């Protein structure tokens, strides 16, 4: 839309995948909105949802999307599946990178302003049983992480790349490892911003 529209500036800056769309931002965004509406037809969606790439949706249960939720495109399509009798809730301005897979057999809830990176798997059912997954606000789940049934992730936490989360992660913490253990986020800040 406009240059100053926050979410698109964010999407461009954060993932750098919108760069190739800079020539025709308006048309691309319009296409993304149409694609998202087509994919999520029959679901409860907020205003302005965007799908910049292919999204495969199974909406047998109830999917509730907030405003300005966006799905970025990439090599592998994103999958959003909500089976019969299940509830999938995604908060405002949450973003999903390519290849993410969200499966709800009972209940999956994702908060506001979450960043779900590429190839993340969120599934609330395994052969051992089904348990709801609750992801708080402002959570960043990094590339290739797996969120298992019963996981509860607090607000502002970060799940590091490749981790497997099965239990409870407190707010403002860093989940790391397989199975994931929680540690303070500030430790990570020191490491991430280490000079080269």
């Amino acid at each position, binding site marked *: 839309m406009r240059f100053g529209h926050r979410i698109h500036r964010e999407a461009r*800056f954060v993932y750098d995948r919108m760069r190739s769309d800079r020539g025709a931002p308006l048309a691309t965004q319009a296409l993304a909105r149409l694609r998202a509406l087509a994919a999520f037809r029959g679901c409860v969606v907020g205003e302005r949802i965007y799908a910049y790439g292919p999204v495969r949706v199974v909406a047998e249960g109830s999917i509730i999307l907030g405003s300005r939720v966006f799905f970025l495109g990439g090599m592998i399509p994103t999958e959003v599946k909500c089976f019969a009798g299940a509830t999938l809730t995604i908060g405002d301005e949450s973003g999903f990178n390519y290849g993410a897979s969200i499966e709800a057999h009972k209940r999956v809830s994702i908060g506001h302003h979450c*960043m779900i990176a*590429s190839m993340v798997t969120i599934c609330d059912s395994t052969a051992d049983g089904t348990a709801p997954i609750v992801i708080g606000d402002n959570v960043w789940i990094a590339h290739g992480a797996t969120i298992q049934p019963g996981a509860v992730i607090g607000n502002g936490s970060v799940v590091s*790349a*490749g981790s497997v989360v099965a239990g409870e992660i407190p707010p403002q913490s860093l989940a790391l*490892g*397989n199975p994931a253990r929680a540690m303070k986020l*500030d430790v990570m*800040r020191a490491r991430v911003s280490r000079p*080269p």
Partner: protein
Amino acid sequence: MPLVADVLDWMSAYHLRRRAGVGRDVVVRGGLWIRGPGRIEIGDRVVLDGATAPIELHVGPGAVIALGDDVYIGGGTSIEAQKAVTIGLRSRVGRFVKIIDNHFHNAAGKRNERPPSLPVVIEDEVELGPRAILLPGAHLGRGTRVVAGSVVTRRVPPFSLVSGVPAILRPLYGQSAGGGNPSQPPEPPEGAAS
């Protein structure tokens, strides 16, 4: 009569030749996604095997992705460079591997700002298992093997085996952990000479 897959291969190869510095006898299969204005250097006899899933090469402004001779890249692999990603001679990268030299977000504080990049270096004859993840600052010494699904964040000595999330050194060739024996190199990777 060429198959559709053959046409896709030719298109990918053409795209790569237009976009990157490519050596001799490079093989490209399946889809190839190249993004960003940066520089891509590809050595001789490199195989980009994107038949199962496309390969992504993402080079930010002023960034470099350099693949040495005889490198094999599996399908679904994504290499994202904001500064530099270097892969040495005869290395083999498995399927769905992710290599990034920037976290793209601060873990704490302002999420929309980028932390500084730390170049990723993969030396010669390294083997990366499928779904391995290399994070900024990873430096794999010569002949290192990375087990499938591992997450490497730091420097790994030559001729060692690493596994786990985050990856730690494992005993190799009947020795205790703490790095391999440089005088006993690993077998050459399969198909390196082809």
